């Protein structure tokens, strides 16, 4: 499979991942279930880009509903570069085939992909970019972000797509955001020990190198302990799976999307269509999500996870009260070989420990130079400033 599942304009410079709608262009979200689905309207972010004069190149391949590591669960096949998994959008940006790409960060896939490809991806503060037109899975944490070759380009595109949208009830009120880049000298960055310890040596080396660059720029880097990384991971997995179960229940074979060829009654239509239409990881997520929402487990799982979300937010914000940003790995390995799909649920869960904190708290995060930065709400500009400064060191 190529990078694009649907090409729109060969001279276009922006790629859009296939969970984001463009009017009249099929949107599959990497799933057989939506192989034949063509949306009637475009996402707000896409409209804003087009209105500002950017042309869309096409729709990039994504893992089924964006749930996986790096796009390997797409119905259209994984993207591999010499046997190594790579995100389609990140690869296009790295090769310079597009200026930037819009990607939905639901469980860290585009953040991870950018970190592995050595390009930038910013997941902005939750609520600053409209989710209108995103094939939804986990509404409480998913967010459109920008994959770009450098911080300056990420800032340019983010400035266009961010701002209040009345069509999204969770959209924050500010009409525009000023991502003013600032001098990083004198800033303080917290390196999260618990996450650092979970990474491979190759990743640790990358983090050490990044920390050294920061110090060269006059930034203080300190080891900080954050004792809720596992709780954040589990809670996000529960919330994300529950919301995904609910959102994907609309794909039932009745109205659009895949429908089984033969069925005897409505129940069989549901069961056969969904069994044929969804891949393994999606099914596993749906089953897990149904379980945590069931009457007998709601309090112990879903409700508890919402309370953990509050505690995690408080603890991370406490760190960010003393530090301008957090530094952490974006994933455990420096590269991922294709893996057996039957391992996927466990693999994705293991890796989500690195990406869960921004997902569950809605805080802005950025993958840059193979590492991950996290800042306080509305401090997206701090992430861009740090990323740009480090990028400038090597220029």
């Amino acid at each position, binding site marked *: 499979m190529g990078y694009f599942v649907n090409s729109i304009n060969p001279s276009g410079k922006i790629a859009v991942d296939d969970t984001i709608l463009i009017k009249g262009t099929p*949107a599959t979200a990497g799933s057989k279930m939506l192989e034949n689905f063509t949306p009637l309207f475009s*996402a707000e972010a896409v409209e804003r880009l087009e209105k500002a004069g950017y042309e869309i190149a096409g729709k990039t391949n994504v893992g089924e509903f964006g749930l996986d590591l790096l796009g390997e669960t797409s119905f259209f096949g994984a993207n591999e570069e010499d046997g190594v998994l790579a995100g389609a959008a990140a690869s296009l940006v790295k090769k310079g085939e597009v200026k930037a790409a819009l990607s939905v960060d639901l469980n860290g896939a585009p953040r991870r992909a950018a970190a592995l490809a050595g390009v930038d991806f910013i997941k902005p503060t939750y609520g600053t970019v409209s989710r209108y*037109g995103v094939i*939804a899975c986990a509404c409480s944490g998913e967010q459109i972000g920008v994959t770009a070759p450098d911080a300056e380009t990420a800032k340019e595109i983010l400035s266009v797509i961010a701002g209040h949208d009345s069509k999204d*009830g969770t959209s924050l009120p500010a009409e525009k955001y000023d991502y003013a880049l600032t001098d990083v000298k004198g800033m303080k960055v917290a390196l999260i020990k618990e996450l650092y310890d979970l990474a491979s040596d190759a990743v640790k080396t990358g983090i050490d190198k990044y920390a050294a660059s920061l110090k060269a720029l006059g930034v203080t880097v300190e080891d900080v302990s954050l004792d809720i990384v596992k709780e954040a991971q589990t809670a996000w997995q529960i919330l994300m799976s529950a919301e995904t179960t609910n959102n994907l229940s609309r794909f039932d074979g*009745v*109205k659009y999307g895949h429908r089984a060829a033969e069925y005897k009654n409505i129940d069989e239509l549901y069961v056969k269509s969904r069994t044929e239409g969804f891949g393994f990881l999606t099914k596993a997520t749906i089953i897990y999500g149904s379980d945590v929402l069931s009457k007998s487990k709601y309090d112990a799982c879903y409700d508890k996870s919402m309370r953990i979300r509050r505690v995690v937010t408080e603890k991370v914000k406490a760190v960010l009260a003393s530090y301008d940003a957090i530094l952490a790995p974006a994933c455990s390995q420096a590269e991922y070989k294709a893996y057996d799909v039957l391992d996927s649920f466990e693999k994705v869960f293991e890796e989500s420990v690195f990406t869960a904190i921004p997902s569950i708290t809605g805080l802005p995060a950025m993958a840059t130079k193979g590492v991950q930065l996290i800042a306080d709400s509305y401090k997206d500009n701090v992430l861009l400033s740090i990323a740009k400064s480090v990028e400038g060191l090597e220029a």
Partner: protein
Amino acid sequence: MKYELVIGLETHVELSTASKLFCSCGGHSSPKEPNDCVCPACCGMPGMLPVTNKHAIELAVKAGFMLNCKINQYTTFDKKSYYYPDLPASYQTTQWFNPICVDGSVEIGDRTIGIKQIHLEEDAGKLVHDDATNTSLVDYNRTSVPLIEIVSRPDFRSADEVITYLKKLKSSLQFAGISECEEGAMRCDVNISVRPEGSEEFGVRAEIKNMSSLSEIKDAIEFEKVRHVDALERHTEVLVQETRRWDDVKRRTFPMRNKETAADYRYFPDPNLMPIVIDDAWLEEIRASMPATAEEQSLRYTEMGIPEKEAMVLASDRKLSDTFDEVVALGRAPKSVASWILTECMGNMKRLEIDELNIDAAKLARIIELVDTNEITRPAGKKVLSAVFESDVDVDKYCEENGLNVKVDESLILTTVQRIVAENPDAVANYKSGKTKAMQALFGLIMRELKGTGDPVVIRTLLEQELNK
């Protein structure tokens, strides 16, 4: 042993909003053809996000005020999941954790019915079964139309109480402009059990789903009472908690398939809808916009001198009471207006098979004014009113064209009387010999001659004078 019924109601009512609960499609009264009132949001397409209809929130709060509820100023929406083709997203947005109104009550006669809660939710679509092709078709026009569900406490003790409550609910909701309560727009789930009189414990409960006709509700309750008492007294069956449906052809309830009732709805808060905070200012604004309730209205009418029974009829129907208020505001006497509306207008409505009163208040006021000031006779007034109902005629013009005005020159009346007396010597002779009926015949002749325009009292007086000369 004597048994008593214990009944609780869940009543679903469609709100009179211009648009649906979470999108801008037209509300309950808009659609004409199937699926002509749908958008990507209300037919469950991916990518759409819900945006809450503020008017629906206000109407639900109004319902809460009307039913003496506590308004939850922090209220949230939750998702209820189940698969059915009439539910396009396979979840219904409802209020499970923080309903908008709680702990209210309604007085019916000398009894008080507790209201547990009122919550907002979206309606489902409609399935149409086509026997010819053995397929089912879905119509999403009704999908996402806002509903309130009014949940009573198990406080009813008879079918009659249930019916009284529903009638009262309907007139109150119509009155406050909360719901039109059209045919089928008010649906009930009836929870019913039976227990020995005096017992505090509840019996085994059956829930009869989705009832809308009052007479069917009454029949279903009576049927269930017999079924439950038979089971307890004569062990005809073992009662189980279950969901049942009323079969209007077979005149009995049947259990629904277990599968439809054993669902786990997996409720959770909708992350796309922020909690709604109704601040004090907004709450007061809604309170200020409340119209008088039917009861307050009825009381107001009796204070105007309208007999209680008539006042209640006027107050029970929004159109009747609005017309009454408008005509009275135009200066007509309340008693007179009540009689014209309840007798003459309703007579015309019955004759012409009209469901709601829809008359220009100014025209009705003019007719009453003409009659009350003896400009025209009451029969003439009725004649104009019929013409207004039939073809919306202009009152004054119609009276003139049809010679209904009473104020005819008295000398014309006198000459007519004298002429008729002169032309009918036989009748005069009959009268003089004691046959008083002859006078009535002469009176009729004069009226015909004057085409009903003369004041009957004047005519009668002049005729008597002439005959007794």
